[in-house]
């Protein structure tokens, strides 16, 4: 029962803004002078053809790449670049285009790993095992179990991730990102390589995350149907340049977008 681009989103404060950001690898310009903002509580999609600079953009937001130009404002604090640690501490979590999990560990342990930042007891207590460290662990485990319940992956709790099919691995990865209790969740092609049913499940989870936890979501996705259904606003990149920005309907009607996707007769 969600209204994309509903009134509450339009008036929501800006959580993160990038201004005039440029990133180049040697002579290759990955991102050129791109500006857009992400409002609190919205689902924001970044789309574009292959090599448009979408993943580079995500990497800039979570501090993995450092742009040569431009500014990033996150929660009111402006800086020229993000550092991964600041991003994580500040509440930015992400999933990867190619699943990046600990393949030999169980789903449960992988998601527990997402809680690392929130575990405060020092090595001494952790080695002692019982006492405060144990209480802490029990509390974290409870949160992780809530996530497992939320994502409906109870049956694979004890299964090593490497043995799981791809669709489930993606779900576990989302679980690990959620374990950080992020304010901003970056999803890099969460539905790549999934069949229709898995896509529908994943869409449902993304909407639920947004609805249930109030998490702001930035999503890169190739499936246009999914993007148009899920997102409140869409940024379109092509060759590292922003060519459109707005609600799904607005973007769909933009000539530059149609050209970028369908090609132009020369």
């Amino acid at each position, binding site marked *: *029962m969600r209204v994309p681009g509903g009134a509450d989103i339009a008036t929501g404060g800006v959580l993160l803004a990038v201004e005039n950001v440029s990133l180049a690898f040697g002579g290759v310009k990955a991102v050129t002078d791109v500006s857009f903002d992400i409002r609190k509580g919205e689902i924001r999609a970044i789309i574009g053809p292959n090599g448009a600079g979408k993943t580079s953009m995500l990497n800039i937001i979570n501090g993995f790449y450092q742009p040569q130009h431009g500014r990033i404002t996150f929660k009111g604090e402006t800086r020229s670049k993000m550092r991964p640690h600041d991003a994580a501490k500040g509440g930015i979590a992400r999933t990867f285009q190619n699943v990046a999990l600990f393949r030999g560990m169980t789903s449960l342990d992988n998601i527990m790993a997402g809680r690392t930042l929130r575990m405060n007891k020092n090595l001494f207590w952790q080695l002692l095992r019982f006492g405060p460290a144990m209480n802490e662990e029990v509390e974290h485990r*409870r949160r992780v*179990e809530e996530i497992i319940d939320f994502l*409906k992956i*109870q*049956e694979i*709790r*004890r299964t090593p991730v490497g043995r799981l099919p791809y669709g489930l691995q993606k779900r576990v990865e989302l679980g690990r990102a959620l374990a950080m209790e992020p304010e901003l969740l970056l999803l890099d092609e969460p539905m790549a390589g999934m069949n229709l049913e898995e896509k529908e499940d994943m869409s449902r989870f993304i909407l639920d995350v947004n*609805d*249930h936890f109030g998490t702001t979501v930035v999503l890169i996705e190739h499936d246009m149907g999914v993007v148009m259904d899920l997102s409140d606003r869409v940024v379109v990149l092509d060759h590292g340049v922003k060519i459109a920005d707005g609600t799904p309907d607005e973007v769909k009607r933009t000539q530059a977008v149609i050209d970028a996707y369908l090609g132009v007769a020369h």
Partner: protein
Amino acid sequence: MPFDASAVADTFPKLLMRNAQWYGTRPSMRHKDLGVWQSWTWSEVAELVRAYAAGLHRLGVQRGETVAIVGANRPKLYWSVMAVQMLGAIPVPVYADAVAEELSFVLAHADVRFAAVEDQEQIDKIQSVLDRLPKLEQMVYDETRGLRDYDHSKLTSMENVIADGRKALAEDAALGAWLDGEIAATQGADPSIILYTSGTTGTSKGVVLTGERSVRAASDTVAFDKLTENDVALAYLPLAWVGDHYLNYAQGLVSGFCMACPESADTAMSDLREIGPSFYFAPPRTLEQMLTRVMIRMEDAGLLKRKMFHYFLGVARRYGERILNGQSVPLVGRLLYWLGHILVYGPLKNTLGFSRVRVAYTAGEAIGPDLFAFYRSIGLNLKQLYGQTEAFLYITAQPDGAIYSDTVGPACPNVDIRIAENGEVLFKSPGMFSGYFKDDAKTAEAMTPDGYVMTGDAGFFDEKTGHLKIIDRAKDVGKLTDGTLFPPKYIENKLKFYPNIREVVAYGDKQGFVTVMINIDLTAVGSWAERNNVVYASYQELAGHALVYDMIETHVAETNASLAADKMMAGVQIKRFLILHKELDADDGELTRTQKVRRGFIAERYATLIKALYDGSKEADISTEVTFEDGRKGTISARVKIRDMAIAPLPALGQAA
């Protein structure tokens, strides 16, 4: 201690109150939630259900009206059933995986004003057909997730209903007294529940069961299997199915045993292992899947373990069943079996979750003798029962110590069975239904004038054991020209237990003798061909291979021998058979989508083959149109060979004893 619970309490609400007194601190229900098993004692459940009932009453649920229950096996849904019954209203469980269409049929037919549902998925389904359910007023739900933005004027969470009821009970003593009065006022003769049949044979019908009959039937089987408050069962089969309502809900309330609800449908197998139930039910298909999984994983085990496993399975095959049946076994056998128990059977049963199972049942379809023997040989007390919704499940069940893979046991205590002229099984039982909901015509159709229920299944009593054998649906049973009853499915199933045979279609109605068309199993026969250097290029070539025919001929001969052993069946031995040149396929309309053969359609399509089977020719040409996976059509032509079989001599009538 055999006792008749119906003497103490003739309805489930009364039983719940009794259990709260008798077994107050014993666990009544468990549910795995957030990875931890939660438990509720009988007194806690009684308190919860009272509060829930009070809350439902305040919402407006009236005595005698129906309330739909839609969802998986979760404690709150079982409590919904209890709370609704406590108010004298009638729960109508609906299958959680029913599509919106079926759901709307049942909800509309049952005139429900209220529905207790599991989650958003069910609410969405019901809302999509809301225009067909003008009577529906309120839904209460268990799982709040995803429902925040829904219109809550027609939705309430069960949590709130229970809290509201609890508060009202605390504030107003009169309400509690009123509720006690309502419980006392529940009548054994009133409808206790309406279970809709799955509708495989036409539209689904609402089977009305009364409280007293339900309680009495459950008391009989609780005594039969000596179930007590110390037993544990896992409730993992659909809540709306008569089996779950009987085996878990009714027997649980009568005996006071603990019902465990799995975390989710997908975790049932691992939950089974964690809970270690003492009473267990599984359809043959589930047992088969379990066995296959074990066998596949054993193939990956080390050489030593594999050898040990297979050696001791051999030991179990030789002595296991006899030990379980309490027959005499040589000392060596006992010692070997004991060793096998320590090394193989014990750990295996532990892995499967069967360590503590005292009584296990299977039913629903014919079970392969090997499959059945496997579980029994490793020491699982697996038995068969036969029943149906109209009987409130049990009609027959095998008693400990008299177990056969091809019978369903003698009549249950207090059940009266009669075989009709046409072979149909008729019964009268303590738990039998009182009628179909709002359908007196169908009720009358299903009963004989003297009050027996017609099951629609054909069967006969085995002479040696006195047990009932179910052979086919009564309407499918035909007659040979000499008047012998001809149950096609019985013959087909016997052949299908051979792994090499995938499908069988038997013919014989209004004919002089029985013939079958066989589909070989490409995987099984293919691997046999590989091992025996049989070269083939296609299914068709393999199916027509002389060696394959030889192999199938031995299977048919064995089947004939086994048919001949039965006086009733000796006349329907297979006289001629052929192996079909193509696999029967649902895309070609030869099978239903649930993989059942459509005998009539196949007879039409392969009319030339049937003609050849009966006119004595040695081979026949056939050409059929087939549909490929991408929808294109093509034709397959073949020359199919037909073989004659020797018929085992009929036992002389005098000797059959």
